[in-house]
């Protein structure tokens, strides 16, 4: 988009039902501010309190996951590229809310993440609760990352978690995650 005319971008956002999106380096204060904005927006609509808190909760978990993961990788030389790779999108699809996130993922981390997500996708609500309880007892990683976030999202999600791994280069893939409330 080389001109100042943003109508195409706006049309695209509207077409996809996107209420809010952030793409770029996440800081804790950005996560807080966007969380406040999405809650104010949802409070102004007719959405039920429980759905509002679920959308907010999934947004926070996704944004903090992206931030925590990227800050662990950031020590390397590709700091700026990695930091800028995070994205979180909140969209409305008729009566549902869709919260999605994405970030660059080191290829070596992909198999474990895929296995974890496939396991979550195979479990019903009772199975997810049992796994959540088990993981709740595991010690907290001091860098953040409780290992509980994805399980919690799967418990809240109206449909199995959807994810995709897109080819980027020799070192990275792009991880996308989609949760429906």
């Amino acid at each position, binding site marked *: 988009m080389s001109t100042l005319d943003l109508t195409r971008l706006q049309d695209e956002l509207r077409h996809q039902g996107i209420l809010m999106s952030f793409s770029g380096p996440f800081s804790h204060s950005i996560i807080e501010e966007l969380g406040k904005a999405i809650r104010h927006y949802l409070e102004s609509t007719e959405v039920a309190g429980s759905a509002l808190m679920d959308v907010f909760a999934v947004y926070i978990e996704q944004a903090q996951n992206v931030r925590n993961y990227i800050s662990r990788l950031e020590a390397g030389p590709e700091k700026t590229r990695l930091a800028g790779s995070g994205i979180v999108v909140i969209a409305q699809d008729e009566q549902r809310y869709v919260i999605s996130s994405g970030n660059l993922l080191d290829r070596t981390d992909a198999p474990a993440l895929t296995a974890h997500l496939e396991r979550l996708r195979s479990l019903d609500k009772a199975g997810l*609760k049992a796994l959540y309880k088990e993981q*709740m007892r595991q010690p907290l990683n001091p860098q953040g990352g*409780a290992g509980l976030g994805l399980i919690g999202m799967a418990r809240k999600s109206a449909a199995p978690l959807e994810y995709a791994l897109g080819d980027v280069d020799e070192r990275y893939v792009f991880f996308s995650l989609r949760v429906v409330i």
Partner: protein
Amino acid sequence: MDSLVIEESRSSPAIRLDAGARGLSISGESYPENAAAFYAPVFAWLKTFLAELEPAAMVRVDLAVRYLNSSSTKVMLNFLDLLEQAAQDGAQVIVNWRYDSDNESILECGQDFSEELTALTFNLVEQSQEPP
């Protein structure tokens, strides 16, 4: 022993730990940048408090959180585990988990915790939402 008071922020709860009254309260939302670091003083305080507690003393714990992120959930379980241990050792520990009627997630979270705890008394207390 001094009280520990931490004021509420957008992503961290208000904390009031009163040794004299043996009353502990946490209220608000919890998704701090680093939950382990944020709650470290709370654990330091609680461990000292419980070590100095007279046998069979009563401790009242009021938890009115509206949201816990996943790290804070683990921290809260650790917090409750310490109180559970005190209850097993003879203290009378009463936890009131307060939830808004329209916040099912936090009710579910309270239920998850209550299933993990047996010696302390864990009450799920519904409250109608405060006016904005």
